[in-house]
């Protein structure tokens, strides 16, 4: 039988605030355990929550960016369950009245088509602490530094039809929240966490099959693998006459498998009710307009601007705007190059395509090779601009520039100029030096010289190559060309 995958994602987006959603404790990552868990985060007797204004602002920005409805009044509710990393015995979340609902996000599929994914809702809630299951032999440790970190939980409709679509949606959302500056997007640190609801149904039918929820998807690659595994597993179960059990499953990246959680799964009864310690949050028109005014340029607009401002092709512009960090890097290089080029005579904007080639070429290649994100690049925008400036002013050739780039990447020196100087890579433009090289090449290649003089002028390219080789690539090729032609004409 042919099965149709039905996938919806629940994405937990940690908001990049200074302090927690309901307390004044720091949200900084990596502090000593429990050193950032204040009285409120620990749920000491008598403490009370107070809502962080920045959290509301960020949620409104997010809602605007996904064309969603912003609730004029939203209500925080308590969701009850017992777990040691949930200090109050309930999580403050939003249930019946979430701050954001009915949004959408357009994704681009592999074949270039566009698909609209509906966002059911995005509500605010507090994160739980961390349970350290591995650290002690006979105990689980509880670190509550993360408890109370603000989260947006963004829930999509089950609109996704393949692991690839799910990843495309998650990547788009990941890029968007970083564009908005509301999340640092760091998946290793848990700033952007994805749970996938996965089911299958016979192709051509509309009823939803029983779904499982896969947790612990902390990279896009694992997400794709986990969903693909789970789709196959469900198909195997159904095809062998079994039934899919509704359950929560964990993805084990080492084995490439999902497995049911061992903790006894009970029917949940969260007993939601409006948190009596908090009052309804009102978002008025003024707040919405302020958030709208604060919205940065979003990916689609940036892509269009890159095409018009820098004359880039659509696919190049799309690739450069896939993340805000990459787009910002690109523009920083262009700008720095323009600054440096002012001294010379080149028009900065004409460098756009050239910069794009380097960012998507050498830089992207190096990042990919070392499995780094743009934020961790070893060649800064300033350094790359310095390198491109030396190509532009003829100090080095494009070929030598690749060598300089790798030297910068390896951290050999702080700037392109320093690498060029240290390695003696400066182009030979001195006509006396080039003339000596040219004369040597003419003397060493009598047969080719004769061919040229017999009218086979194509052989000039070979002779120029010999000059470049003799100069170890440092001769100015145009100069060598000109001088060779002149000497041969003598």
């Amino acid at each position, binding site marked *: 039988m042919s099965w149709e995958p039905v996938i919806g994602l629940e994405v937990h987006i940690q908001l990049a605030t200074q302090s927690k959603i309901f307390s004044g404790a720091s949200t900084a990552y990596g502090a*000593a*355990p429990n050193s950032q868990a*204040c009285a409120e985060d620990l749920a000491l007797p008598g403490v009370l929550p107070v809502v962080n204004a920045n959290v509301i602002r960020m949620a409104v920005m997010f809602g605007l960016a996904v064309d969603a409805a912003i609730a004029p009044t939203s209500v925080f509710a308590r969701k009850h369950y017992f777990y040691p990393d949930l200090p109050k015995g309930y999580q403050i979340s939003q249930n019946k009245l979430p701050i954001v609902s009915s949004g959408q996000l357009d994704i681009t599929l592999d074949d270039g088509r566009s698909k609209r994914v509906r966002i059911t809702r995005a509500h605010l809630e507090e994160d739980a602490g961390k349970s350290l299951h591995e650290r*002690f032999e006979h*105990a689980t*440790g*509880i670190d509550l530094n993360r408890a109370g970190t603000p989260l947006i939980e963004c829930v999509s409709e089950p609109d996704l039809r393949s692991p690839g679509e799910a990843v495309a949606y998650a990547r788009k959302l990941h890029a968007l929240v970083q564009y908005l500056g509301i999340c640092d997007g760091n998946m290793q640190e848990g700033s952007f966490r994805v749970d996938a609801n996965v089911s299958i149904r016979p192709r051509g039918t509309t009823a939803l099959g029983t779904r499982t929820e896969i947790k612990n998807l902390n990279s896009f690659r694992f997400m794709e693998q986990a969903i693909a595994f789970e789709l196959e597993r469900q198909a195997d179960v159904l095809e062998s006459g079994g039934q899919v059990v509704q359950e929560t499953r964990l993805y084990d990246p080492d084995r490439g498998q999902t497995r049911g959680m061992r903790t006894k799964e009970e029917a949940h009864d969260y007993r939601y009710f409006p948190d009596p310690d908090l009052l309804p949050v*009102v978002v008025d028109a003024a707040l919405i307009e302020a958030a709208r005014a604060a919205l940065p340029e979003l990916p689609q607009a940036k892509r269009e601007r890159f095409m018009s401002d820098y004359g880039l092709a659509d696919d190049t512009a799309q690739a450069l705007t896939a993340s805000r960090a990459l787009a910002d890097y690109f523009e920083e290089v262009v700008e720095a190059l323009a600054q440096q080029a002012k001294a010379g005579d080149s028009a900065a904007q004409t460098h756009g395509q050239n910069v794009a080639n380097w960012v998507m070429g050498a830089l992207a290649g190096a990042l990919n090779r070392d499995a780094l994100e743009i934020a961790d690049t070893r060649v800064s925008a300033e350094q790359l601009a310095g390198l491109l400036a030396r190509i532009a002013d003829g100090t080095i050739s494009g070929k030598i520039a690749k060598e300089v780039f790798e030297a910068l990447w390896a951290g050999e020196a702080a700037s392109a100029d320093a690498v060029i100087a240290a390695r003696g890579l400066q182009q030979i433009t001195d006509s006396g030096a080039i003339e000596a090289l040219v004369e040597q090449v003419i003397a060493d290649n009598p047969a080719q010289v004769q061919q040229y003089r017999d009218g086979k002028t194509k052989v000039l390219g070979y002779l120029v190559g010999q000059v470049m080789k003799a100069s170890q690539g440092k001769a100015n090729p145009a100069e060598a060309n000109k001088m060779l032609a002149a000497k041969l004409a003598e």
Partner: protein
Amino acid sequence: MSLTADQVRKVARLARLGIDDAQVQGYADELSRIVEVFAQLEAADTDAVAPMSHPLDLVARLRADEVTESDRREAFQAAAPAIADGVYLVPKVIE
């Protein structure tokens, strides 16, 4: 309206109150008498009445996003039943 022994076991489980079998019937009787009082509410016509969560008709006052709390781990953990290396300990949980 009354609570059966099974319902008492269910709510005790939800509330993580370990009551033994000998106590269940006693609680069932007491809780049933309390829940019987709630029958008074049925008579009230509340179709046109909005639920009231809070005595005053106010909206949330928001806090500036500032770090105001410092590390007081030592003081807070003075009362902790079991700690090691700054983390709270509970019996091992296997997920």
